[in-house]
């Protein structure tokens, strides 16, 4: 490209162009359709960069629930405010003079599978709202200085940088002096921190909550009104009835009694194939893409996803339970509305022979493993209205397929079984920036991996 054109574009978009430069740019664009195309590309890049910039600067408000924010149409001011919150219309937020609050940042994310309307990548700011961590471990750093290490499955509601409502899960907290007074609410009572490290374990059913102090002091306020102060190495259990102190710091609950689970990622062993083999135009490494058009339509946009896990170091005989977890994410391709309300998908096991040896790059449709030659292991459905969801597959067929593997790698295919029109279904690949890629969780009968290997 002629650098002078680019320089004019830069000056124009930065608001630094003189009247003469704007007139010059206009003349060049009127005469040159190619330059206008470059200009429009530049405008798109400007819009995208501004979007990223505002997001990184935490200016963009994210709604906890879009529907609940929609006001009555006759209240324009409220409408504007709601737009500001729901649609990330940054200017609207600034017009009403409020920079939306954030409570902290996600400090780390280890194989974390989130279910939230909010950004959940490492480094992303989080605000008040509900977060469901399906799998993995994530560390949230609150602006107050408090840190929470959360182990999935867990559900929390962030109220502010000083307060969290804990629905269920296991977590440990580090609360420095700056955050003394940090409060965690549970359905049985509240824990108010006085500068400490403590852990909290709370199941989804009514089995009670356990609080253990590793260092420092917390005050536990039971819903009955009873208050107990716990100090280093002290713990307490509370349920609906009562709050009991216990001095046994080893009975820490959740983390210790959890079944031994191995979590495997694909380590990049994943790809999609498209019927037309136009991989460059039709596939993205961010997604495992799946699509099937109706019979009367041309199949050239049909897609299937392939993924595999290395199980060579695992004693397959000792697997008691297996869960394949996929994060469904919108690909942004096609229309949701021309799909049936519910689409069915099949998980297929790829035969344990040379058909498993598909390459991750450049794989052509005709060379990819075929549905009809594979074993159907599980089925699942997704609603078109819910483009983001966590899919957990744990069928007996899946378990049996894993146990009979001989090659050290288990390969799967995801196939859409409901013909649709334009929509391309997507599941996060291991490269997806927000959602975690596919994960195979194996519950072992006992500690059984090869000595020396660490998971």
């Amino acid at each position, binding site marked *: 490209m002629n650098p002078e054109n680019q320089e004019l574009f830069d000056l124009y978009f930065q608001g630094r162009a003189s009247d003469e430069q704007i007139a010059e740019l206009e003349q060049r664009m009127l005469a040159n359709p190619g330059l206008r195309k470059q200009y429009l590309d530049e405008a798109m890049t400007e819009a995208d960069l501004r979007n990223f910039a505002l997001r990184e600067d935490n200016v963009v408000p994210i709604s906890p629930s879009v529907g609940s924010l*929609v006001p009555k149409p006759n209240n324009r001011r409220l409408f504007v405010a709601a737009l500001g919150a729901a649609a990330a219309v940054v200017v*609207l937020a600034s017009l009403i003079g409020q920079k939306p609050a954030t409570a902290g940042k996600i400090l780390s994310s280890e194989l974390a599978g989130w279910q939230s309307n909010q950004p959940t990548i490492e480094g992303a700011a989080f605000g008040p709202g509900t977060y469901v961590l399906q799998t993995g471990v994530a560390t949230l750093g609150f602006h107050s200085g408090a840190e929470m290490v959360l182990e999935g499955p867990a559900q929390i509601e962030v109220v502010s940088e000083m307060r969290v409502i804990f629905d269920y899960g296991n977590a440990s907290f580090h609360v420095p002096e700056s955050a003394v007074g940090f409060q965690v609410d549970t359905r049985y009572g509240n824990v108010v921190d006085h500068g400490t490290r403590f852990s909290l374990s709370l199941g989804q059913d009514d089995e009670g909550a356990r609080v253990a102090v590793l260092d420092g002091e917390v005050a536990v306020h039971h819903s009955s009104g009873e208050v107990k102060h716990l100090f280093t190495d002290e713990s307490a259990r509370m349920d609906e009835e009562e709050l009991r102190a216990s001095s046994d710091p080893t009975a820490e609950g959740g983390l210790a009694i959890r079944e031994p689970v191995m979590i495997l990622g694909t380590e990049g062993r994943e790809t999609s194939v498209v019927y037309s083999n136009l991989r460059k135009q039709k596939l993205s490494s961010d997604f495992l893409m799946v699509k099937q058009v109706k019979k009367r339509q041309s199949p050239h946009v049909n897609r299937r996803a392939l993924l595999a896990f290395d199980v060579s170091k695992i004693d397959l005989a000792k697997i008691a339970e297996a869960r394949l977890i996929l994060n469904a994410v919108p690909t942004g391709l096609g229309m949701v509305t021309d799909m049936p309300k519910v689409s069915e998908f099949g998980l297929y096991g790829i035969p344990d022979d040379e058909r498993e040896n598909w390459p991750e790059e450049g794989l052509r449709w005709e060379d990819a493993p075929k549905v009809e030659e594979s074993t159907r292991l599980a089925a699942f459905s997704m609603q078109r209205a819910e483009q983001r969801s966590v899919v957990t597959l744990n069928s007996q067929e899946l378990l049996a397929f894993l146990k009979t593997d001989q090659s050290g790698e288990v390969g799967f295919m995801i196939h859409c079984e409901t013909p649709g029109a334009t929509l391309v279904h997507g599941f996060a690949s291991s490269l997806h920036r927000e959602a975690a890629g596919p994960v195979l969780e194996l519950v072992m009968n006992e500690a059984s991996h090869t000595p020396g290997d660490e998971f």
Partner: protein
Amino acid sequence: MAENQDQPKLNEADFMRLLLQHENALRAFARSLLPSWDAVDDVIQDASVIMWQKLGQLEEEEGFLPWGKVIVRFHCFRYHEQKKKKGASFSHELVSILADEAEKIDEVAHASRRRALETCLLKLSEPERELVFAPYLGHGRITELAELGGTSANALYKKLGRLRDRLRNCVQNRLAHP
């Protein structure tokens, strides 16, 4: 399409979802017709209120983006008429041509570009990314950064130009070899 015949008419939640889904495309469209982000923000605000009021006109969700662009386009022209005394901007003739051409932008291609750009941004260092984002975070941000770094705004703009070249090349490469 049989699928759509039994669908309920679009409601508020649909509107918010559609606006959220297409907001970036509408902003890019408006930016191609308007001289500044302030103007874009004003126009998008007015246009979204009109879209909300006229939502009944829209029969099907897939019509949202083209319909939204028509409304945004109208407000962009109105902006030009009202502001034409103040400072230079493109002529009505050029803005009309650009609007026609921008209405035809393939949003799937735009989405690929955006993903490529996002990946390419990760290749920049933190201070480099800060500089790339600076122009969107307030009028004086580049000058502030220059003062903090003991350099001139002009030098930073030059550096920014080089970073944007790198991003452009990276995006083109990724689109050519995904």
